[in-house]
């Protein structure tokens, strides 16, 4: 059982559309990270959010950490085919990161 629930599990959209994916938990995390993973590779860190209510922007990607530090969202504006991949959220518990199952995003040209 994953400690972090991600939704939707799969998302297929056209180039240029906007999208939001969610990461929810009943646990409070000291920090939360978002990763992107491509087939045959390990996850690559996109962002770390630490403070409840924090918003971080990375070009067309906007990350938000919930006020209670239990949930997070990732919003992508004007998605491009290069955004295709598995987006994973991970929350920090003691020494380890607990990952969600991911949202598999496909952006069609």
């Amino acid at each position, binding site marked *: 059982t*994953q400690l*972090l629930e*991600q939704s939707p599990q799969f998302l297929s959209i056209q180039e240029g559309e906007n999208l939001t994916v969610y990461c929810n938990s009943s646990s409070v*995390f*000291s*920090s939360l990270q978002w990763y992107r993973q491509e087939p*045959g*590779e*390990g*996850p*690559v*860190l996109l962002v*770390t959010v*630490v403070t409840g209510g924090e918003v971080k922007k990375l070009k067309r990607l906007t990350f938000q950490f919930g006020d209670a530090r239990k949930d997070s969202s990732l919003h992508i504006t004007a998605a491009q085919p290069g955004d295709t991949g598995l987006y*994973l959220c*991970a929350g*920090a*518990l*003691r*020494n*380890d*990161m*607990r*990952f*969600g*199952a*991911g949202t598999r995003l496909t952006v069609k040209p």
Partner: protein
Amino acid sequence: GAGVSQSPRYKVAKRGQDVALRCDPISGHVSLFWYQQALGQGPEFLTYFQNEAQLDKSGLPSDRFFAERPEGSVSTLKIQRTQQEDSAVYLCASSLVVAGGQETQYFGPGTRLLVL
């Protein structure tokens, strides 16, 4: 620069065989993590090393799983008497600092293990 490397990239084992998976972290990185990623799932934490000390092995699924990092650099994950349910991608990650939740973990490409 060199990232985290893992070998072999692919391993096919017969049920009951022992396997050893190697991780070469980024030079100088203090922390090393092993994760197991089943098909369609996110990575699941297995164990954590700070230098040569294994500080957390709470995620190892059974006593058939053993990990070591004897000199605080290269690490080996060993699985004895492999079972079909061990089939997964095994990811290694390293970070420069002591684990605390905000550090950047750099992942290797993983070893894909298939147990027949």
